[in-house]
């Protein structure tokens, strides 16, 4: 089973809708009595502003590597049998599934803990960026607002470890058009075959 785990790409990026039922099936294991999953959805407001839609952009090669590392850590740290994470890239509408994390383990405790660990680490470490488009026509890259020269990172903690409460105001000219994600982005080609995402990593290594 461990050999199978190694060749599978457990962290994947997708430019079409995630399919949790398919992802869940990949975690089934006769040795596991507990399964926990987390779904992150696109919310219609952030920091008091009405969000109409958003867009994720990823540095594909490094995102896949770092994602795999996080899943490795979770499996070692909590002793869970299987763990996966799938993240969307590109434009998303309100209510859409943005990120899915699933873990299976012998018992529920490790499953809950590992699931929580994975989503927290993914948010802080994986090079994926979120641009929000607001009702007032403005748009902004979440977490980048306080990063101009002269500002202070403060408290010695990397800013990437803070949650999205501020956004950078971008010149309104940019707000009108949806920018496409970088063309070289490594994305799973089809949601129908989730395991296809494995090829992206295999090629990247």
């Amino acid at each position: 089973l461990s050999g199978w785990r190694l060749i599978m790409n457990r962290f994947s990026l997708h430019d079409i809708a995630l399919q949790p039922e398919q992802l869940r099936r990949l975690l089934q294991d006769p040795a596991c009595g507990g399964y926990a999953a987390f779904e992150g959805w696109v919310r219609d407001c952030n920091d008091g502003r009405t969000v109409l839609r958003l867009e994720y952009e990823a540095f594909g090669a490094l995102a896949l590597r770092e994602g795999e590392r996080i899943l490795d850590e979770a499996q070692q740290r909590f002793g869970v049998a299987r763990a996966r994470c799938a993240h969307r890239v590109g434009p998303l509408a309100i209510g859409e599934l943005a990120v899915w994390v699933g873990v299976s383990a012998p018992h529920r405790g490790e499953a809950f803990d590992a699931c929580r660990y994975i989503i927290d680490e993914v948010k802080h470490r994986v090079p994926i960026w979120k641009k929000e488009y607001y009702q007032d026509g403005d748009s902004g890259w979440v977490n980048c607002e306080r990063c101009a020269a002269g500002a202070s990172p403060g408290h010695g903690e990397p800013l990437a470890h803070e949650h999205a409460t501020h956004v950078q105001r971008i010149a309104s000219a940019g707000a009108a058009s949806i920018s496409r994600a970088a063309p070289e982005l490594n994305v799973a080609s089809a949601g129908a075959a989730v395991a296809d995402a494995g090829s992206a990593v295999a090629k990247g290594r």
Partner: protein
Amino acid sequence: MSAPELYGLVLTGGRSRRMQRDKANLEYAGKSQLERAMQLLTPLVARCFVSARTDQLEDPRRAAYDTIVDVLPNLGPMGGIHAALHAYPDCGWLVLACDLPFLDTATLQHLIAHRASTRVATAFRSSFDGQPEPLCAIFEPRSLVLIEESLARSQQCPRALLASSDVELLELPNPRALDNVNTGEEYVAAQAALVAAPPAAAAASAASSASASASASADGATRRRLKVRYFAVLREQAGRSTEELETQAGTPRQLYDELRRLRGLTLAPEFLRVAVNDEFGDWRSPLADGDTVVFLPPVAGG
């Protein structure tokens, strides 16, 4: 806030007492010093001028270029710098003496890449005395007031001005790049040295960056061919997803400082992480020719 536009000024105004002739017209490899200096500087700045006294305006070599004539007479280089800042007070000025036969493009690019536009000037530290070199330096708009104050005190030495001002001091990548030529003997020696080993960029303009591999110029300053990928807010600020450039930057930190100025990136490096060749990297680790560098804004997945 981006840096004020950069203009160039080649100083030719001084009389060469020791050489007994007009230094601007001294020739190396068939080119006058003035011609060489203008060719080095013009591709690197928005506009480039020759500084001259009124009595030099008729000189056909100078007349080939846009000229800024001294406002105040007989003040030496300080008069030329003053006239330029007086004429275009909103620009930064890269000021260059014309008698620097060893100067190369790489040295000027290094100066521009490390420009600190919020300070009075950016200059190299002299290899001889550790003082700022005023005649291959960038004078920012705020230096005009200081120059006028200095002149009002009959203080005409630009080196003294910089030594007592808020100046960004850089180490010379090539310690000989600013050696100048004041006597006939030095001229003969310089001619011989240049024939033996011409400065890498003497014949080429900034467009020489087309070369595909890292090259060590005559002075040993290593240049690297690097690829940069931009994501998210930095992609929007840079106006591109990727670029390739030839640079003297030896670490990701130096590269980011260079690109920040070149592309007007507003994010401070303290907020970024860096990746080299698709793996997280260190800001201070040396870059190699052919490396791909990505600067990572604060992430926001999930």
